[in-house]
């Protein structure tokens, strides 16, 4: 698993680091300066960044690429591969957050949100990241990278349409952020977060199933 994890990290540094860090810092700085650390804009912005980064890291195994070959051909079992994928992606997310930490810490000090609220918001962003990562992984393997767009369309449709039915709202990361900021979520915030995490892990498991199916097809 360790070689796979290092390989994932190296590939991110080689291909994606400059673009994703630059985009993240540009978006965060613009939001911070334009809104002067309005907590709503800043946290929704961070949530969107997490979703975009997760999707980008999950859905990066186009057909006939070396990375896809490693996934399909390697000896590493599917659970270990999923764990390695998850850990490397979390490391990349933490790198981004650390890189953006000056703006985030300024917002934390100046806005003075209570620490439990800050932690709940960060947890929602993290789970949103894992969710998008799993969705991108499953979609990319199922449809191939170029055909992965239906998965992206589904994700966007869910973000737009999932806001309206009340029973789906706890599973909407951006709405979860909004409700925590409004202080109206209460204990429901934790239940929503747990449900969101379950959904993310479910999608990751789905990605594992698709990977297993692709491996069988590849072997034949």
């Amino acid at each position: 698993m360790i070689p796979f994890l290092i390989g994932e990290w190296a590939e991110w540094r080689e291909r994606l680091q400059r673009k994703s860090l630059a985009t993240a810092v540009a978006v965060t700085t613009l939001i911070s300066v334009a809104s002067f650390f309005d907590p709503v804009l800043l946290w929704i912005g961070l949530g969107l960044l997490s979703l975009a980064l997760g999707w980008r890291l999950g859905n990066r195994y186009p057909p006939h690429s070396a990375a896809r070959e490693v996934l399909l051909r390697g000896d590493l079992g599917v659970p270990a591969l999923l764990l390695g994928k998850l850990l490397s992606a979390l490391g990349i997310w933490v790198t981004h957050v650390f890189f953006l930490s000056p703006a985030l810490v300024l917002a934390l000090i100046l806005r003075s949100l209570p620490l439990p609220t800050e932690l709940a918001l960060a947890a929602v962003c993290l789970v949103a990241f894992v969710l998008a990562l799993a969705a991108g992984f499953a979609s990319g393997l199922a449809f191939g990278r170029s055909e992965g767009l239906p998965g992206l369309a589904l994700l966007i449709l869910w973000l737009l349409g999932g806001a309206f039915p009340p029973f789906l709202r706890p599973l909407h990361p951006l709405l979860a952020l909004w409700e925590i900021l409004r202080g109206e979520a209460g204990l429901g915030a934790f239940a929503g977060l747990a449900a969101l995490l379950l959904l993310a892990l479910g999608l990751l498991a789905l990605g594992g199933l698709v990977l297993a199916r692709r491996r069988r097809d590849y072997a034949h």
Partner: protein
Amino acid sequence: MSSDDTMTEGSAPESLPGWPYLGPRLMTGLLALLLSLSLPGAARAEEAGLRASLGFAGLAATGRWAPLWISGGGAPPGSRIEVARLDAVGAVRSAEIFPAGGGPTIECPLRDEAGITTVRLRLLDEEGVVAELRMPARDGRFPGHIVLLVQGGPGIRRAIADTLLPLEPVQVAEIGLSSLPAVGLDYDGVSALVLGDPGASLSPAQVEALLGWIAGGGRAVITGKRSGSSSLFTALVARTGEGPRPLEGGGESLELGLGALLDFPSEAAELPGASSPGFWRRTLGLVPYAQSRRLGPSRAFADPSPRWTAPPEDALVSQGISAGLLLWGIAAFAFARRRRETVLPLLAFSALGLGAAVTGGLLADRAHHGGAVGLGRVLLLPGSGSALAWMGVGAEDRNLLGDWTSFVAHDRIAVSALGTEGGSFSAERGEGTTWAHGPGSSFFSTRIAEGRRFEVAALVPVERLGRPELAQLAGRAPLGSSSNLPPPGTASGLAPRSGLLAYLGPDKEVLWWLPSAAGAWERSSDPPGRLVPDRDWLLALHRAYPGFGFLVGREAMPKLGLAVHGGGIAKLCWVLPFPPDSGRAGLGAEGGP
């Protein structure tokens, strides 16, 4: 409390919304249920000695502040009394908590505000609610002049009540001496006062409140003057340092700010013309209520929706932080775009940025107030050394949440005004703001503010503002007139000062005069930039007091501060009013007797 004052005990049944649509039997049943539910609370309130009365002998002016007298009986030390304002659906719009047991009676100014129907009183101890009492908030409200009569008689009462007939009636409230307010806000709905000379019976707080009210345009008549220094009039003359003037037919008058204090040697019933409404109209200087121009807190701070914009000083801090962050963003962007990268430089760059952010954030934190805007306004009452003050805390207008409570930790909001009092306030979800008064005497009282913003108002001694120059300006400068533009650097006491920003003229058209470096005044159609957060309030003052001119400044008042998020409101806007030539706030338009 006067024995005349009506005290309320127990809960009163409230009217139910939509009652006409319910059948009479159902209504009767519901009322019976309500009454039966309220009985235990009423019984407990009686047992605990929790009693209250609103206004002066049950009378209070519509839309004005009035005293709510609360007696906690034998409340044990450490217990508290909560006064909550409830709307029609029973939601708490704002609440104040007083320490109980500090004295026999608590005086809580209560403003008649739209939407507030009920006042709920609770005696609280460590374990919770000991007793509860509910009373209607708007009963006894009168939309006209209310005159207080202390030691009068039925004949005088009738004569004063007929003063403005047939135009409008005047209500007379006969009260005891102890029912004279000790909190200046409570005089808001009082148009005039007639009292027999009580000598030195008034407490210092009562004297302070009385002088502030007179300076704002109130008129007090003292009858049956005592001899020598035991007279209240003599004591007030000595207190203000002003010289009294003799009145035709005996007696003396002391003009103070926009109002006056009259003193007669005879008892009220023995005054020539005491039974004549015309005598009292001239003596009390009453004009039709709509024409009254008394400077009171309700009218002076009637601005319904202040502009919640960061004051210029705070905006400067915000701009500095934004500029610093933008520079960091550009550097970070350039760093991220480098062709080759290693982990260590990335970590080092992030750590450096983090260190700078923590240092800068902590330095700027005190001025930033956690994103909340703190506003402070002071209307100086000339000649008295008193001032009407208003302070508010709220989210900036541009804040998307529209609500500061979710991003400012409650325990970091503290009122530390005037040194002797203090308190903190919080706003829990689903409830209005709650202000806990400190153990000292309290000038400030809360107002209902929209969007869970927090507002307090008070009548305070100018000496307590921490600006001796302002105390001199308001307390000693002769009262000017709005037709004479006060030139800076003259003997009027209006020396050019750094805090002086503008003069808002008395004309119908809004005209600003700005002091120039040469000591002259320059006409302008706009206020200076530093007055932008207070512009709407100043315009509301201009509309509410036609013919008045207003000298406006802005400066720090060290003792009058609303500490928010560890930092105080940097500067407050002060205003010195100049009445029209025609008279003092309209009340004394007809002069003395």
